[in-house]
């Protein structure tokens, strides 16, 4: 019962209010709030905000999910066997999870400056002075911010994959080995199907979480250069700052809809592929 009350107070009521305000002309310019149908959605579409923000958000989420899961699965495979060395590296790779997203963003924005440590390191390896503005180009800024988000959460995904790999029964692996299955075959044919629950968790949490991305982007690019990394929540923040609360609520409703519309089919799809032992 208390948990139900918490859900109602902190989720259901704000959601219902937000959904209502998305269809109202609420701004900070006037106290009067009236129903205005789809005007807010029309306005943010006319301003070119909605379509662009959805596109950037989806690309951002896809890059995060791909980078995060490829890196984490690789790391988990290397760190699967418990030992002092793997424990050390598991802890090391988990550290970014404990850092505040804002701090992570500020650290990386300093690292990626044209005269920052990343370019200095590259300058050692390549001839000439390398001073590329990683966060100053639309494409590289989007990839870099997504990579920072992936870096931030990869340690957690790695632990989930390590747990998944360790739950694969050894007799099955041993039997496959005796049957002549090579390392890649064992991984692809046995471990991957049995890792589906771990994939489900990491893909859904990763994808749905990054649809709500905000803090890392604000700390690195604030949505720039121009609007290249203006995801839905950054656009929402900008509309709120302009005093167009109805527009901000409309964008918030889009985020919620996108999360639900993505998470439910994704979970259902992944659940169908889980293998019972």
């Amino acid at each position: 019962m208390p948990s139900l009350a918490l859900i109602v107070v902190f989720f259901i009521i704000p959601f219902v209010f937000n959904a209502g305000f998305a269809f109202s002309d609420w701004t900070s310019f006037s106290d009067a709030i009236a129903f205005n149908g789809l005007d807010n959605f029309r306005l943010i579409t006319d301003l070119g905000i909605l379509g662009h923000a959805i596109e950037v958000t989806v690309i951002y989420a896809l890059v995060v999910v791909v980078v995060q899961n490829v890196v984490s699965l690789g790391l988990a495979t290397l760190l699967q066997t418990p030992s002092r060395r793997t424990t050390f590296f598991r802890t090391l790779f988990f550290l970014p999870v404990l850092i505040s997203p804002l701090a992570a963003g500020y650290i990386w924005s300093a690292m990626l400056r044209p005269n920052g440590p990343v370019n200095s390191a590259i300058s050692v390896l390549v001839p000439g002075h390398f001073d590329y503005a990683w966060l100053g180009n639309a494409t590289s800024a989007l990839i870099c911010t997504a990579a920072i988000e992936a870096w931030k959460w990869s340690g957690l995904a790695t632990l989930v994959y390590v747990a998944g790999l360790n739950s694969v029964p050894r007799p099955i692996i041993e039997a496959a080995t005796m049957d002549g299955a090579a390392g890649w075959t064992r991984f692809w044919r046995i471990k991957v199907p049995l890792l589906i629950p771990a994939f489900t968790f990491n893909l859904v949490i990763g994808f749905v979480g990054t649809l709500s991305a905000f803090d890392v982007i604000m700390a690195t690019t604030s949505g720039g250069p121009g609007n290249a990394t203006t995801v839905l929540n950054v656009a929402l923040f900008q509309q709120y700052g302009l005093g167009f609360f109805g527009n901000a609520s409309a964008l918030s409703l889009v985020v919620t809809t996108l999360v639900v519309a993505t998470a439910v089919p994704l979970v259902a799809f992944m659940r169908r592929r889980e293998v019972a032992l």
Partner: protein
Amino acid sequence: MTLTVWRSPLDTPAINNLYKAYEKASGNKLNLVSLPSDAYEVTVKTKFVTGSKPDILNFAAGVDQISQLNPAKNLIDLSDLDFIKREGSLAKSAGYFNGHTYAVALGPVASYGIFYNKQVFANAGLEPPKTFDDLKTVCSTLKSKAPAVAPIFEAGGEGWPPQILAGMLYVTDANKDGAYVASLMDGSAKLSDANSPLVKGLADYAEFRTSHCFNSDATTAKLGDSAKALLAGKAAMVAQVDSAMTPLLADDPAAARKIGFVGVSASGPVVATTPNITGTYYAPKTGDAIKERAAVDFINFITGKGYQQYINDANAVPTLSGVDAPKQVGLNAAVATALQSGSAPTYLTNLPASTALGPLALQVLAGQISPQDVGVKMNVSFEAAKQKLAK
């Protein structure tokens, strides 16, 4: 009695002295609450929306900001106070909305123009710019005579600086006596007109970008970088506001010798001015009549008995008549001289939804949007705000 003051953490020592002087003179205590400077206006608006108000509010003076506080309902009308006559025309632009003045701007006013490196200009045989055409000439001359120098340093990583050169300075001379805003408000002109000052200024700004007049890291550089580059002679010019730039430049004791300041607009040397948040005060309606009267007394003190000392402490050009102006030195003297050559309140101070310009200027700097499209989008936001304000 204790009065709560919401203030910007950017407050100067002169302001702190003024608070102490008021406490001493009145016997009241001031509970100074510093709100985060990052998103200060958003924080104040959010608190007002939720019904939370201080007794005294330190806040921006622009119509775009104050109109969002619903002034008729939430702020005490200061139009009948003694300082209004001494504030002159500023009383009709600072904290002014629908025929009422809700704020006092003690000064100094913020002055927007071009900071330039004198040595770089002298080496290239250049005169300080006065118009946007001059900026183009300076850019092309420097590119041939001093290719290592960035003609204009832009700090797009900071968010707000690009709008100064992109959408503010060019328009300043068109808004003398508030003419441009008046034409927008009565509908005789639109921000999206192809020949509007906004679009023409943005077109020049886009040309600076395509002509490589900006530093190579223009989209990511920060304000501090621009001051360093200017002092080091790695950049020739920075379009900035004195309140943000002067403290950064003053880190170098020789700054006044190295750096100059001029007003630049479409057709002549006009400095764009706007009241600073620092020194701009409102008295919100809190429902507590005694504290509301005390808040008005606070306004009377800071504009009356306490004003001369404040101006002396701030070493500022006074905005209210009847006090002696301290002699300006260093970079402040350069700004004061430029102001004497010509100044006008920036149109952005009195334009509803003007804050839409910031993100759009960043897009022009990144080459993602045309000047005409910025005009169209600014107009959409402006009309939506105007419509709501009329209700």
